[in-house]
């Protein structure tokens, strides 16, 4: 390889320095929010990420005082996934457990909690 060609390749590689780089996909917000107290049954559980999750390898579960709560089919929107809460949600603490992967394919897992308290 000539010196000029090598310098040209090196310059092209250095130009890629300006590209914005993403680390692994991360959770940005959730609904219900972590540690929130919800008055009544939440309509759905939704989690937003820094990238659009891959539906084929993503899932979410909701566990409450009576065990696992039935959720609807997983839906993927721009940078978020959600599922309707179909089962009953009596007062108590609930834990949302999620698993998803972004563009790099690395599986990410997490969980957070919220509470349901019916207004009286």
């Amino acid at each position: 390889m000539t010196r000029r060609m090598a310098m040209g390749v090196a310059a092209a590689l250095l130009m890629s320095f300006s590209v914005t780089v993403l680390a692994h996909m991360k959770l940005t917000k959730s609904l219900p929010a972590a540690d929130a107290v919800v008055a009544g049954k939440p309509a759905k559980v939704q989690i937003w990420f820094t990238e659009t999750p891959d539906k084929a390898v993503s899932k979410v579960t909701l566990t409450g005082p009576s065990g696992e709560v039935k959720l609807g089919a997983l839906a993927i929107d721009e940078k978020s996934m959600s599922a309707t809460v179909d089962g009953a949600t009596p007062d108590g603490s609930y834990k949302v457990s999620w698993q998803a992967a972004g563009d790099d394919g690395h599986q990410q897992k997490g969980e957070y909690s919220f509470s349901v308290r019916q207004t009286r």
Partner: protein
Amino acid sequence: MGDSLTLESLPKIVAYLATLTYIGAVTAAALGRSSHGAFLFARCARVARLAALAGLAAVLARAWVHASIVADGVPDRETLTRVVLESRWGGRWQWQLAATAAALALASLRGLTRGVWIGPALAALGWTIATPLLGHGATSTWQHATHAAHVLVTGAWLGTVAVLALASRGPHADLPALGGVIARFSPLALTCAALAAVSGGVLAVTYVGSVADLVGSPYGRWLLLKLLAVGVVGACGFVNWRRTSGGEAPAAGWLQAEALGAVLTAVATAILTETEHPAG
């Protein structure tokens, strides 16, 4: 650093070693064209076939391991199918599978021992492009291109070192002929090492971001280990170059030490690509 050595790193180590060795076999064959070609062509062909076979096994193992991570245990058939056929990761994995299968097929051609290596050369290029599809390089076109360039020049440098070390082994090794090949390889090795440093430097700055993260994060510490292994390769390479440029035959021991450094570099790289990088 314990978390860095994930299950997915293990088949990746084999995959990276196989990719670099295959590229090295193609490069060594090209270097051997003008002298004592038959000896080197036969050795390179055998190494290329073994590398492609190992690469294929590693790609298949990666699918199983990735599915087991998704399933959080032994994957059933449904999970395996969903991962390799329906997920975004699986779509890119299929390209890697095709690339390694093509590499094996083209390394099995009869013309290789006569010096006809255009097929494996194209396969090496395809395999190089497919390699960064699973991992950090998948997030943008520019990252993919930089990763692929890094793999190509590293393969042409470290892969060829490994192949020449393998060719130096055994009672029928033609060390004087290898000396001539190494003399022709040295300027190429220097150029590829420089390009690997540039592309690796771009990736390191992009993924690490600061000196504090270089020593304070698992990714940074594995990167430092990788650089140490590269240093071993460079030192042994210098010794080999001094011997062969002075007209001496290469010492098999120094070649093999250089190859060991190359192996350690590939191991550290595989672990790096499974480690979350601190930047971003």
